[in-house]
């Protein structure tokens, strides 16, 4: 940005004055009227400086003084309990007490911090001009005193405070002070806003994002357009807070990001969850699948209760949990493993934040190969605990029994006592056993069999399982942090965007030149107004890698948790193709691998961005093919304005590099038909080199970004010609076909009409 901040000079009261001390740290922000520095007459400077030096308040060269670090004290449970019981006290005493206590605490804290501050500053040097003294509490007081009385209390030196004329950042003049100018105050550029406040100076937001139509001749002639003076971009940062940052700031951010990514040779990948990596449902009918299928996981999420507006209903203390069932897409593990070294993964989902967080940890558990979630781990922990108790009781018992029997040899009378004891004890063991959740079968086993050894082995088994589970969990958590970090954006984070909009700029303020996006819906990306620069308005950005929406057949008909799946234009072999044959993630993994190698094999100077590369990769897929679409695009949409969004299937075909034609002729290689029997489909059979194919082929090409073999997608030939496979009829036959042209066609058409 060409914009330079406004500067205001800081002047000394007269030429005879010199700066004694700066009251604020150079480069920090000051408010109007704040004391910036203290100055005095030149002849008094030496005295004043020595005084200040002796009172140990100057700092060494402008480094940042760090506070003393300690350990945080948390109150012991006992004191909390005491505080709780002491709560219902009459108002008056509490009132004074609390305020009094607070004051006292504050005073104590101040008293504590002062001596340490003073001690740290003992080592001071005298060069004041370019040093930054710190403002301790005493000094501040002194300053205010001197400001009012114009006289330092103990010294006879007259010091004058310099007050800040405006809000801004204090800077010192680099060269010698001229005309009493010792520095300048730079206006804040407001690089970003959080909750309507400038992140730097804390002033409330001015009208600068879009509403400010600064059409002054100066700015518009310079930039050549009517853009507002400063356009802010909204960025959703980790944790779901949306920060509005200025263009300059976002460019800087993007630059840093790009440098970092280039440094570690990675690219970004934004992942969608539902129907892309998994299929989730909250339908309880999915419960039985959980046990039978290894890839079905559960997660429990609290249901957010909408508060009643009038506050009549009591908010429920116990949140209601709902179990969600999640089926992971086949090959997910291979996919994640293959991309995670080359890509920095982010999650952008239409689900809630909690859902997204839970899913990421489930993904990581899947990666490390454990199925235990927190709840199961807790169960296991409890089982181990019970087993431990049981074992200890048993050991104690046996010991006791042994000693008892020894005693029993001496004293005959102990026998009956022992019997009673045994009875009691065995009852106790039984009780413990019923609590044991691990195996109900064992509980019925005779008590006598549970010797210490048996219990010991069981305990050891449980312990081993537990420690393994805990280790895995730890590993998964670590993995989650390293793979996804805090790069999780959910619907709840970007509530202002609406339900079906995903904006790339929210994650990458500069449009994501190094990011690929994986999603099963493109409309959500197309809906955002600011996603695409290269593509037409209303079309998704080229960064998007569309995947086939994943449906787990067993969840078929159950309600989706979050948003619906993308439109599956292939509308195809849903039934014939079982989910476990779904190899979309393998395709995608391959595409991403290629993309990464392509990106980093480029020359540094002429680097193409990810969207450009992806467009290029797509263009090669169906290069040299001439397509005719039939029954897929409404005829009246053939004539289009140049920048209106194209029908999806047309866009797919064109982005894959295919040439679209309106009518079938010799040069046409493929006719993509929604159904057989259309004019174009029939015409296609006339030409030997023309293949009549289902749209699923085009979709698969698009999803896999490779030329799929057409065999599986061929339109089944109509009965009369079923003998000859359509793609490559013999030349003779073809010639024959082309000769018995119109009549045949008309007859056929007539026949068809008759049938209706």
């Amino acid at each position: 940005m060409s914009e330079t901040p406004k500067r205001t000079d800081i002047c000394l009261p007269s030429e005879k004055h010199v700066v004694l001390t700066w009251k604020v740290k150079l480069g920090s922000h000051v408010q109007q009227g704040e004391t910036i520095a203290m100055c005095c007459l030149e002849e008094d400077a030496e005295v004043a400086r020595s005084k200040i030096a002796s009172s140990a308040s100057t700092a060494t060269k402008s480094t940042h003084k760090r506070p003393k670090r300690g350990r945080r004290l948390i109150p012991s449970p006992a004191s909390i309990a005491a505080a709780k019981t002491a709560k219902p006290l009459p108002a008056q005493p509490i009132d004074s007490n609390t305020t009094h206590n607070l004051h006292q605490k504050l005073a104590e804290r101040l008293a504590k911090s002062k001596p340490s501050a003073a001690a740290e500053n003992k080592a001071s040097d005298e060069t004041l001009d370019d040093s930054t003294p710190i403002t301790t509490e005493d000094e501040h007081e002194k300053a205010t005193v001197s400001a009012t009385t114009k006289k330092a209390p103990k010294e006879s030196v007259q010091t004058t405070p310099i007050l800040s004329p405006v809000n801004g950042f204090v800077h010192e003049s680099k060269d010698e002070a001229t005309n009493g100018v010792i520095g300048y105050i730079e206006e804040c550029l407001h690089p970003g806003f959080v909750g309507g406040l400038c992140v730097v100076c804390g002033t409330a937001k001015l009208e600068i994002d879009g509403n400010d139509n600064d059409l002054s001749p100066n700015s518009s002639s310079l930039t050549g357009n009517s853009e507002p003076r400063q356009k802010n971009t909204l960025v959703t940062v980790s944790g779901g807070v949306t920060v509005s940052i200025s263009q300059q700031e976002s460019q800087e951010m993007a630059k840093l990001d790009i440098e970092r990514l280039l440094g570690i040779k990675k690219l970004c990948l934004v992942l969608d969850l539902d129907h892309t990596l998994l299929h989730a449902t909250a339908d309880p009918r999915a419960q039985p699948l959980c046990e039978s299928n290894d890839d079905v996981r559960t997660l429990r999420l609290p249901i957010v209760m909408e508060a009643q507006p009038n506050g009549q209903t009591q908010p429920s203390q116990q949140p209601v949990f709902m179990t969600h069932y999640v089926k992971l897409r086949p090959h997910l593990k291979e996919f994640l493993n293959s991309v995670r070294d080359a890509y920095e993964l982010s999650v952008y989902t239409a689900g809630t934040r909690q859902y997204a967080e839970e899913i990421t940890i489930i993904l990581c558990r899947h990666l490390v190969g454990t199925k235990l979630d927190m709840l199961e781990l807790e169960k296991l922990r409890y089982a181990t605990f019970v087993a431990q108790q049981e074992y200890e009781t048993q050991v104690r018992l046996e010991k006791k029994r042994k000693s008892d029997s020894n005693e029993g040899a001496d004293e005959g009378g102990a026998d009956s006592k022992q019997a009673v004891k045994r009875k009691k004890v065995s009852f106790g063991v039984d009780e413990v056993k019923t609590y044991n959740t691990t195996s109900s079968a064992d509980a019925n086993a005779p008590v006598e069999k549970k010797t210490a050894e048996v219990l010991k082995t069981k305990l050891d088994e449980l312990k081993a399982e537990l420690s393994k589970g805990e280790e895995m969990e730890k590993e998964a958590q670590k993995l989650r942090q390293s793979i996804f970090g805090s790069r999780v954006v959910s619907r709840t984070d970007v509530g202002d965007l609406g339900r079906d909009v995903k904006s790339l700029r929210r994650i990458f303020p500069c449009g994501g030149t190094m990011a690929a996006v994986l999603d099963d819906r493109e409309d959500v990306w197309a809906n955002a107004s600011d996603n695409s620069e290269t593509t037409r308005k209303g079309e998704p950005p080229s960064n998007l890698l569309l995947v086939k929406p994943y449906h787990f057949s067993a969840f078929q008909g159950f309600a989706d948790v979050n948003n619906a799946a993308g439109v599956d234009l292939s509308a195809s072999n849903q039934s014939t193709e079982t989910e476990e044959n779904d190899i979309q993630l393998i395709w995608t993994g391959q595409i991403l691998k290629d993309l990464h190698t392509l990106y980093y094999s480029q020359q540094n100077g002429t680097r193409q961005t990810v969207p450009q590369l992806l467009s290029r990769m797509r263009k090669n897929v169906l290069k040299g093919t001439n397509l005719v679409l039939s029954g897929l695009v409404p005829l009246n949409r053939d004539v289009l304005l140049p920048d209106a969004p194209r029908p999806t299937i047309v866009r797919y075909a064109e982005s894959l590099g295919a040439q679209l034609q309106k009518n079938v002729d010799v040069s046409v290689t493929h006719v993509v038909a929604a159904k057989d029997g259309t004019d174009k489909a029939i015409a296609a059979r006339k030409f030997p080199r023309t293949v009549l194919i289902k749209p699923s082929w085009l979709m698969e090409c698009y999803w896999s970004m490779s030329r799929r073999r057409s065999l599986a997608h061929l339109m089944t030939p109509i009965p009369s010609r079923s003998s000859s496979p359509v793609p490559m009829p013999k030349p003779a036959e073809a010639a024959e076909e082309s000769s018995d042209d119109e009549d045949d066609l008309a007859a056929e058409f007539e026949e068809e009409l008759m049938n209706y």
Partner: protein
Amino acid sequence: MFYVKQLEHEIVLTPVHFGPKLKATIVRLLKEEVEGLALANYGYVVNVIEVPEDQIKSGIIEYDSGDVVFTVKYTALLLRPFINEVLDAVVTQCNALGFFAFCGPLRIFVSKHSMPEEMFNGFDGSKDAWISDDKEVVISSGCGVRLRIKGRTVEQGNITAIGTIKDNYLGQIDDGETMES
């Protein structure tokens, strides 16, 4: 800063609540409604300290609904951030733009521009932490910082504040490891 102040609030009750426990119900509802709320001029209501019974005025019937409106005076412990106040907060999230810290219910954002120069470029994305050039100060989620409030707003019952740690003796004060006292 915490302070104690007497405030007023209106409670609307349906006739179902009328009975011997009326006053207790009013107090309960008052606590439910105001505790945790951020009032524009007074800050967060941390706790309703006392509701003097004689200060609950007799209610007025609303003829439209049959509900009764009680005006209740109560003493509340309030938390209000003041500009240039220095306070201790716990860091909850770090991101490339800065970090968020909480002081009780109050959320404070500290931008990277408000950090000392030695930390300005110190964001580590893999650890989600702000690290000073000499690697001595690591501000990550969970650690305590001392900061100065530079600005605040109240919106929809929530206060957002902007803080700075770009001054002497501001910055990290503990690593977030707690110890029982």
